[in-house]
């Protein structure tokens, strides 16, 4: 646990799920639901000779951000890769359904997950489907759902799909968002298709900068918890409407994007085709220089 006075400066990537919440919300405002002392743990892991976590790898609760009431969930990416199991998923789903009954100003999802926990995969997959349903219902009822991504597990598998269903997505440099992870692609398609040990390739394909430039994320921040806090507050105030018109516009945007860049084999080819300056240096420059770069046309579309 990081001392309260230093928590804003602390790095999102290195912080625990609870430290992220503590630094993101107004000091001392977080009230946890089903905290670790209640020991609501996975009933499945012991069958696989695995020790559990007292919170099943996710902290959920309420608090305030700049005085506004928010609900928040944070996955602990270091426990089983932040993966969704039955209890883990039920805690997130309960939070989202609770938000429907008593709408907060926003719901903040601090996702840090490799996807579904293989030891309880059916329950995990079901939870992810229900979470997606609950997020879309919330958005339709006018509650912003903001994803904040920058942990060590990234947002993969169902976690990547959940992220893409949110009203707004904020990423820090370490963030990776995708569905099939690099190791999964390599296992299924071979190392010639995707070398998961090539870290630069991994980040070019699913890393924060590529996602942001292409419009798969709405905000890019330097890695501190304080920067995430500032971006989250800004996103809450600026969320697009959610309805058929928007969905059709998004479908059109993605169709156009596929048409323009579908033949590209790697991210720099997209940046070159889009006319971005220095397409090969996107991964090498520092955050300040990166933030001055233009995004591809249409990336800041409100559709998502």
């Amino acid at each position, binding site marked *: *646990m990081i001392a309260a006075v230093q928590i804003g400066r602390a790095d999102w990537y290195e912080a*625990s799920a*609870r430290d992220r919440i503590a630094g993101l919300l107004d000091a001392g405002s977080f009230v946890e639901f089903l905290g*670790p*002392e209640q020991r609501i743990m996975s009933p499945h892991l*012991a069958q696989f*000779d*695995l*020790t*559990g*976590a*007292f*919170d099943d790898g996710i902290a959920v609760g309420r608090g305030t951000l700049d005085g506004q009431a928010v609900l928040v969930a944070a996955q*602990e990416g*270091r*426990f089983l890769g932040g993966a969704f199991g039955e209890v883990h998923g039920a805690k997130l789903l309960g939070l989202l359904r609770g938000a429907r009954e008593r709408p907060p100003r926003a719901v903040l999802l601090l996702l840090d997950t490799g996807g579904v926990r293989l030891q309880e995969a059916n329950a995990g997959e079901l939870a992810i489907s229900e979470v997606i349903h609950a997020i879309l219902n919330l958005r339709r009822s006018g509650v912003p759902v903001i994803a904040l991504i920058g942990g060590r597990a990234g947002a993969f598998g169902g976690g990547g799909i959940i992220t893409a269903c949110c009203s707004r997505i904020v990423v820090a440099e370490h963030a990776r968002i995708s569905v099939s992870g690099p190791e999964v692609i390599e296992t299924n398609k071979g190392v010639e298709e995707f070398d998961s040990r090539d870290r630069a390739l991994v980040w070019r394909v699913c890393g924060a900068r590529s996602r942001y430039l292409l419009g798969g994320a709405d905000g890019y921040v330097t890695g501190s918890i304080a920067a995430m806090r500032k971006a989250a507050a800004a996103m809450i105030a600026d969320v697009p409407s959610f309805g058929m018109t928007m969905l059709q516009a998004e479908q059109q945007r993605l169709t156009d994007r596929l048409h323009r860049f579908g033949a590209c084999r790697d991210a720099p080819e997209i940046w070159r085709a889009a006319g971005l300056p220095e397409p090969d240096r996107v991964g090498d420059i520092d955050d300040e220089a990166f933030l001055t770069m233009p995004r591809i046309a249409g990336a800041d579309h409100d559709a998502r």
Partner: protein
Amino acid sequence: MEQFQLQGKAVRRAGGTRRQALTGVNASGNLEILVERVLADHECMVEVTTAVAGFRGTWDAVAQDFFTRASPGGLRFSINDGGARPDTVMLRLLQSVRLMEREP
């Protein structure tokens, strides 16, 4: 996987008034500790669930050393262990006692 309880006696009650604290993560080479102020003033206990079987003697040695050093009277330490080394276990235990001394 192995589960056991290690009982101890404390010279004095642990400092602070906080009811509970959590530290660490159950990950490879790491552990999480949930501390709760639920025991009598001169009792203390470590409850271990560990992924690595066969090291109860080492756990007992670390726990008894910790009880002597920190005198954590009244505290119950529940551990989910992912194969942490004894020095890591001791550091986390000492850290968890400190957390209980913080303002609630």
